[in-house]
């Protein structure tokens, strides 16, 4: 069986490819860091001192989700859609670089990039903001959720791009999703609880909502009902999986050439 694992050269190639994308660099690194530093100084102004620490943690946790959303959903979709529109993946496929292997190489490169982005984000915010250290269980849970989100957003972006195949439409759809997620999941200043009932029901289907509203409450530990969070992850992952499968189906090469002469 052929391995799906790309070699180091492919991963470095995809990292270079990613670094050539302005969207990813700006929205994936600069924007969340700048926003997470500026937001607390605005929202804590009218809060009593004992509520300020909690507000800072909420902003810190919520803005951390912007990194996987911006890098995977926006940045990757923008970059990959341009490639698909120009038949670059097909060109590489015709050189024997399987689409599945390319997908894995791109995913690994993006996971390396968001790891660097997370480190920068945590490091800068830790220095600038007065953030209380969470307990170990919380750190593991939070980071796991961020990486899971990253993989799911990557799959959604990949699926949409391979189905749509046009840069303009892909970018419009992913931008719409990005801002919808931001609004629904408490990343634009409106909390999930403040949303109208119908929108709140939609928001509660998404794991980002639970991360933004619940994680501050278990920052120091304590019990937590994981079921809604896990269900929402399963729901989003199922949608991502369906999109990827539809994309694979749409871009599959015909099978005739693989018929062998006995």
């Amino acid at each position, binding site marked *: 069986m052929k391995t799906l694992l790309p*070699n180091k*050269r*492919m991963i*470095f*190639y995809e990292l*270079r*490819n990613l670094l*050539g*994308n302005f969207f990813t660099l700006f929205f994936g690194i600069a924007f969340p860091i700048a926003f997470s530093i500026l937001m607390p100084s605005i929202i804590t102004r009218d809060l009593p001192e004992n509520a300020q620490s909690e507000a800072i943690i909420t902003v810190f946790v919520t803005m951390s989700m912007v990194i996987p959303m911006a890098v995977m959903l926006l940045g990757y979709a923008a970059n990959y859609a*341009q*490639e698909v529109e*120009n*038949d*670059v993946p*097909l*060109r*590489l496929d*015709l*050189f*024997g*670089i399987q689409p599945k292997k390319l997908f894995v190489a791109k995913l690994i490169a993006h996971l390396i990039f968001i790891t660097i982005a997370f480190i920068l984000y945590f490091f800068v915010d830790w220095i600038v903001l007065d953030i209380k250290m969470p307990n170990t269980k919380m750190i593991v849970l939070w980071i796991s959720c961020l990486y899971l989100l990253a993989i799911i957003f990557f799959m959604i972006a990949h699926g949409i791009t391979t189905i749509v195949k046009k840069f303009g439409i892909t970018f419009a759809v992913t931008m719409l999703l990005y801002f919808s997620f931001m609004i629904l999941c408490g990343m634009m200043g409106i909390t999930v609880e403040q949303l109208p009932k119908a929108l709140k029901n939609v928001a509660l289907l998404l794991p980002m909502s639970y991360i933004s509203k619940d994680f501050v409450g278990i920052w120091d530990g304590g019990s937590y009902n994981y079921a809604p969070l896990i269900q929402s992850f399963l729901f989003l992952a199922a949608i991502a999986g369906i999109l990827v499968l539809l994309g694979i189906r749409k871009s599959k*090469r*015909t*099978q*005739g*050439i*693989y*018929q*062998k*002469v006995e």
Partner: protein
Amino acid sequence: MLTIKDLRVTYGEQIALSIEEPIVIEAGDRVGIIGSNGAGKSTLVKSILGITKYEGTILTNLRQEEISVHLQQNNYVNTMPVKYIIEMVLSVNIKKDNKLQELISYFNFEGCLNKKYAHLSGGEKQRLTIILVLRKDTPLVFFDEVTSGLDFETRQKLMQGLIKWYDGKNTTLCMVSHYYEELEQLVNKLLILEKGHVIAYGTREELFYKYCGKTLYILDNNDKNKEFKKQFKSILAPEHLIALTCDTEEEERNLTELLIHANIDYKRSNSDIEILSINAKAQELAKVEGGSFVENFVA
């Protein structure tokens, strides 16, 4: 190596390609695929590569990665320096691969390695894919209008590069081109397509003999030569030329003497692909369309 049977490609109502008689391409064959625009040449290549939907059977004993292709349009990541594209596609380090360095040097590509793909000229982009395809060194290679849009000098250089690279190798080549003089240097078989149908497929020698006779004498199409032509057997030729055909050495000797005597410039050929293709199309289509095609063609 490759067998195509009952192949049919349709775009909506229109038949883009229909191959009824089996086409067998053997190892080491160098096949020139020719025909007018819309004849189905690129559709055939795309069908073999599995990138267009078709009905029918394409059989091969090769794995997908043992086939490489230079398409009409070849794109890579615009922001990527070319050396990283080469190293990724070929999975090699340029500095450690002597064959690759030779190719880069032959195609004067050293100066392009650090350029981003978007900054390459049209000719440089063509050279990049040619270098990649040649270095891949697969048993079956397709070139789809590899020199289209390039100036004469660049075309010559590219073709010389291809000829040199494949000299003495058993690689099977399928080359789509509108430049017959390029094909004459490289191919030993021809597949002539027209309006999605196969006009002829075979070795150049057998097709030439079938449609042009043993030898051709090609003259300029002027009044003096038109008059001269009347005494001999002629076949169809491009508008600016006259093609006289000979079936025996005796006929050739007589014609040569008369041409010298009449002080007429001529070119002798037993391999002219352009005239072969014109006559193959005319003769085969005349069988189908009851001769009306030839009259229209000549007119």
